[in-house]
């Protein structure tokens, strides 16, 4: 009799606990019925992503997606190239990672798939600085999409101190700080971004509504616009590329200039060359190679090699007139003359193939193969770059072969040192050699 109330209490406690447990479970299950709404909101916001929080801004995203789809894209000049490359790498399927990637400035943007020979993407950027080049590689590295081969087009201004380290003030300094810290193991002001804030946007109904409005508008009008409603000027180019009225970006990342620019006559080219000789972007005050950026470049190359990526250096020539102008006015450009010899010795030391030269005549590029003072035509590249397979084997270019055939193996060093032929103002190559080299 005395135990009875105790038993009863025990029984009711168990019942209460069970009741509470199952009630709690019922509530949780019923709340789960609302999860599809939440999931839909998250999925939709992530997919449309009007502010580009997750997939990048709308305009660069359009360009990147068109390039990935194999389209040539119009209005290259209006592109935010750095954003496009970031999104291109982000959205690049792993099974489509190119074997070879080229890094450098606009001076490498004429390097095309047919000149390289394997699956290829050109990540050249207008006015690329040392930061840009390292950032581009780090983007690939971060995403785990490293190519087998890396062509680094080395511009002299990469070694011209801090003022030229970020030539156009467009480089992503945060990404660079991240690369310094996480890639090279150097100290930097990099701080891990607060990703929580970013992800909060996915469960922000206001962001969802913005995405819905944008998607509906796009569906109704059929026009791609930015978040602010401005139309996105990039379209897939169809038809005849020979009569382009704007510069376009090809699916291999290279740039095809508009027909008018490509067909400039000698006077037009020289007018531009004269103008560029006056400004010489990135080379002013280049009294010596900057030790910090030189050291960083060395570390960068070692880092690339440590990732089992084959490196090839490429030097794009300046127009002969510009070279002569610098030779005639060397004061303040001393560092410029140091770069090529240093790079050649560095390449030799690290067993890195190096092709091209800043001196057009050394590599057999006549002035007729220049669009302007800084950019040479694809035909010129064909002269001084033999394709990636040949480059990795250290094979000679057609011009080198022609030169050796003319002067013999005993004078091989002349290939890199000779200044071949002159006109009144410009250094030019021997027309016969050029004809023979081009034909081979």
């Amino acid at each position, binding site marked *: 009799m005395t135990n009875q109330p105790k038993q009863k209490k025990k029984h009711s406690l168990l019942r209460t606990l069970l009741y*509470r447990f199952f*009630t709690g479970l*019922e*509530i949780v299950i019923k709340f789960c*019925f*609302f999860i599809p*709404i939440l999931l839909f*909101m998250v999925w939709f916001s992530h997919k449309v992503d009007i502010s580009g929080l997750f997939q990048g801004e709308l305009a660069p995203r359009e360009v990147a997606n068109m390039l990935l789809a194999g389209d040539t894209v119009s209005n290259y000049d209006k592109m935010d190239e750095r954003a496009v490359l970031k999104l291109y790498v982000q959205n690049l399927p792993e099974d489509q990672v190119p074997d070879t990637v080229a890094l450098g400035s606009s001076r490498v943007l004429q390097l095309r798939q047919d000149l390289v020979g394997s699956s290829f993407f050109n990540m050249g950027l207008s006015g690329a600085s040392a930061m840009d080049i390292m950032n581009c590689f780090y983007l690939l590295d971060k995403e785990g999409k490293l190519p087998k081969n890396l062509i680094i087009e080395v511009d002299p201004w990469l070694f011209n101190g801090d003022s030229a380290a970020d030539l156009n003030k467009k480089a992503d300094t945060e990404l660079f700080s991240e690369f310094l810290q996480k890639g090279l193991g150097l100290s930097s002001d990099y701080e891990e971004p607060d990703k929580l804030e970013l992800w909060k946007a996915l469960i*922000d*109904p*206001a962001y*969802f*509504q913005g995405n*819905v409005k944008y998607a509906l508008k796009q569906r109704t009008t059929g026009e791609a616009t930015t978040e602010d409603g401005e139309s996105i000027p990039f379209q897939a180019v169809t038809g005849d590329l020979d009569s382009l009225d704007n510069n376009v970006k090809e699916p291999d990342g290279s740039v095809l200039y508009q027909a008018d620019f490509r067909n400039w006559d000698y006077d037009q080219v020289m007018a531009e060359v004269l103008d560029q000789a006056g400004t010489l972007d990135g080379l002013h005050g280049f009294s010596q190679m900057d030790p910090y950026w030189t050291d960083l470049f060395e570390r960068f190359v070692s880092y690339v090699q440590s990732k089992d990526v084959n490196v090839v250096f490429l030097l794009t020539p300046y127009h002969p007139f510009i070279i002569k102008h610098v030779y005639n006015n060397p004061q303040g450009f001393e560092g410029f003359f140091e770069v090529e010899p240093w790079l050649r010795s560095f390449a030799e030391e690290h067993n890195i193939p190096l092709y091209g030269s800043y001196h057009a005549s050394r590599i057999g590029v006549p002035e007729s193969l220049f669009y302007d003072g800084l950019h040479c035509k694809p035909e010129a590249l064909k002269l001084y770059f033999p394709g990636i397979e040949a480059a990795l084997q250290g094979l000679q270019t057609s011009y080198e072969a022609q030169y050796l055939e003319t002067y013999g193996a005993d004078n091989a060093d002349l290939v890199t040192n000779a200044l071949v032929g002159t006109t009144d103002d410009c250094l030019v190559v021997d027309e016969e050699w050029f004809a023979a080299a081009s034909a081979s």
Partner: protein
Amino acid sequence: MDFNTLIFLGFFAGVAVLTYCVPRPAKPYLWLLASYAFYLYKPENARLVFILISVTVVTWVCALAMDSVPQQATRRLFLWVSLGVCCGFLFFFKYFNFFGELLGGITGLFGGEAPHLDLIAPLGLSYFTFQSLGYVIDVYLHQTKAERNPLKYALFVSFFPCIFTGPIERKEHLMPQFDHPRRFDYNRVAGGLFRVLWGYVKKMVIADNIGVFVRAVYSAPDKHTGPYLLAASLLFSYQIYMDFSGCCDIAIGAGRMLGFDLLENFNRPFAAKTYTELWNRWHMSLTNWFKDYIFTPLSFYNRGAEGFLGKLQGWFNIFIIFPISGLWHGASLGYVIWGVLNGLFMVVGKATAKKRRKLAKKNPLYQVPHLQGILQRCCVYLLFTACIVFFAADLYGGKAGTVFAGLFTGWGQAGLGQLASGFAALGLGGGTVLMLVASSLVVELIEARGPVAQWIRTQRAWVRWPLYYALCLLLLFFGVFGQSAYIYQQF
């Protein structure tokens, strides 16, 4: 902490779970803790928390003293102390600058300057002072016993679902619920949750979408013509109803989830056929407060008068409540005019009721079934809107005079298409209008069936769940997020 924030949802979920996990005697203390956390979350409130504490302490001590002292004079002294402290805080924080400016206007004639202080009133000041005052007056009038437990009384004053926007609770109604917390009841909690959701839809979908248009028009009334001003004025009445009643739905629903029955504040006011009925259905806790603590005592003191003087005194007693109510809403002339107009409409309504009833019998329109009710409701709505123009003008920084003057401009100048695109540019596009009409209809139809929390629990699952989903999707697609707080919160 605002009701329409994620942080509130998280906070409330935590409090609700804890409520049903802690032992019953500990529950009031958990709620007190939660209430102060809720109040202190806003830094501006944290700086002024001494006001809440002072009001709580003074009214608790005075009520206790009144309860234990038999002498009427001493009791009256304690009543005046409470009134002085509560009204003092109210006056200082809400009305100092207003009366200072009025005074300045007068002294300005003689070269004096208006006194002005940079004051920010703590949120909920009007609500918790009125709630405390009501309690003290009830104790003074022997209508309730003083609460002995200071913490429970502090909870009564600061109870978080009611502190910012009411309803203004009574001790006899709320305190017993603290003393005897309810057990978990699935139907109550589910019903409460539905009412919270309902409140969010009313506030964020209906009120805030209308608010986008009203704000655009009222913030620059001189730039808009008659059609826009008329639409904004008519819509503002509904906006403020949806805003405030939505907020009350959240408060009452949240209270219900914790096991409380809070006072209802609205009973479909726009279904009222007379102005008196409207005020019996609108902000009921405040109206009843005024009725109990101003109208009734005034009527008591004026009870001797007879004949026309008696009528006049009766009308005055009704009238005076409204300007006071206007001042309660905010210290500005607009709110006072709003109150005066409402008072006048009430008095005229009372004075002419009999004659209007006689006339109504001869009105041929009233012979058509349902038409009388519809016309009466329209009249009530229009009268209410005429007053609310002053309210809206004060709220959005426009000028009521400009609104009234502009009402007669621009008619017939613009075509329908032009008007439609004008409305769309101000936030009332075709889709929004369609959504607003549909949502409002659903709200009115369902609320006509009784309290929504109870109604939903009587429905079958195939009605309930699609409705839950519809409300959630409505919120997701049309809710205005990151917007203003509740309009009545600032009062």
